[in-house]
């Protein structure tokens, strides 16, 4: 039986989204398709799959990403679906829980963890710049047209709040990158 759930996860909530999808899988609902606001689950046995959401630079079907995803498939990690965003792709993958009982971990050393976080941080900065530009544009419309436009002011406020969340997530990423770099100075 298919179950459709409408839910929003922002770009900085990748881990929260992944945890939720895995929790659904643990209750016997395996993700089959994800859109920007919808998640479609198929009823299966509980804990059949474990899921991992990835963040890749460029389109999913770019040559580099196709090679990477094919390699993951050889490891038993298959693409369920993906969503393209400007300059990046959000990919939902899964593997049999029997093969990956501790979950899918794509990075097992400090350098590759840092590299993965840098890709994410770079995109977060891009998102923040876009949001702040949208905030300024809406503020300009709200106050700069000779009369006050409340709708644009509300939009500017909402986008600004989102950009603050994005900024917090970006700072957290850089703090974690800094911690890993210190760790790398004494450990591999």
């Amino acid at each position, binding site marked *: 039986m298919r179950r459709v759930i409408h839910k929003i996860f922002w770009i900085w909530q990748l881990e929260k989204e992944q945890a939720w999808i895995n929790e659904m899988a643990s209750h016997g609902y395996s993700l089959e398709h994800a859109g920007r606001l919808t998640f479609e689950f198929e009823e299966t046995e509980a804990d059949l799959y474990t899921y991992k959401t990835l963040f890749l630079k460029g389109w999913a079907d770019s040559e580099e990403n196709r090679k990477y995803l094919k390699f*993951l498939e050889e*490891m038993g990690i298959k693409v369920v679906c993906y969503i393209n965003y400007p300059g990046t792709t959000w990919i939902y993958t899964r593997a049999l829980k029997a093969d990956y009982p501790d979950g899918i971990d794509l990075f097992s050393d400090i*350098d*590759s963890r840092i590299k993965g976080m840098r890709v994410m941080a770079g995109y977060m900065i891009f998102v923040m710049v876009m949001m702040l530009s949208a905030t300024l544009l809406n503020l300009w419309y709200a106050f700069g047209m000779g009369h006050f436009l409340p709708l644009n002011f509300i939009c500017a406020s909402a986008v600004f709040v989102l950009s603050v969340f994005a900024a917090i997530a970006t700072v957290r990423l850089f703090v974690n990158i800094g911690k890993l770099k210190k760790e790398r100075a004494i450990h*591999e």
Partner: protein
Amino acid sequence: MPQLALTEAVFYILLSLQKPLHGYGIIQNVGELSNGRVKLAAGTLYGALNTLVEKGWIDALPENPESRKKEYVITKNGLAVLKEELDRLSELVENGKRILGGN
């Protein structure tokens, strides 16, 4: 200039590729060699394999149409690097034992 130390992952990958292996085979072999202590993750392995191919330390073999899995094998350069690293590690162990009095 002396060679920089290899990461544990690279050392075990080169050690595993004395015979052709595909990605999953490398992960399994590294796990067995290290008695389960070293667990290579797929993303880390992918990055390491690409870098090692670029450096000419391993070769990517033509894809087997039956398994459709790409296999890799160590090159002469890779073997030389591995032996050099082994000498470096031996020096560490010998000095450690000499100073700490281990066996």
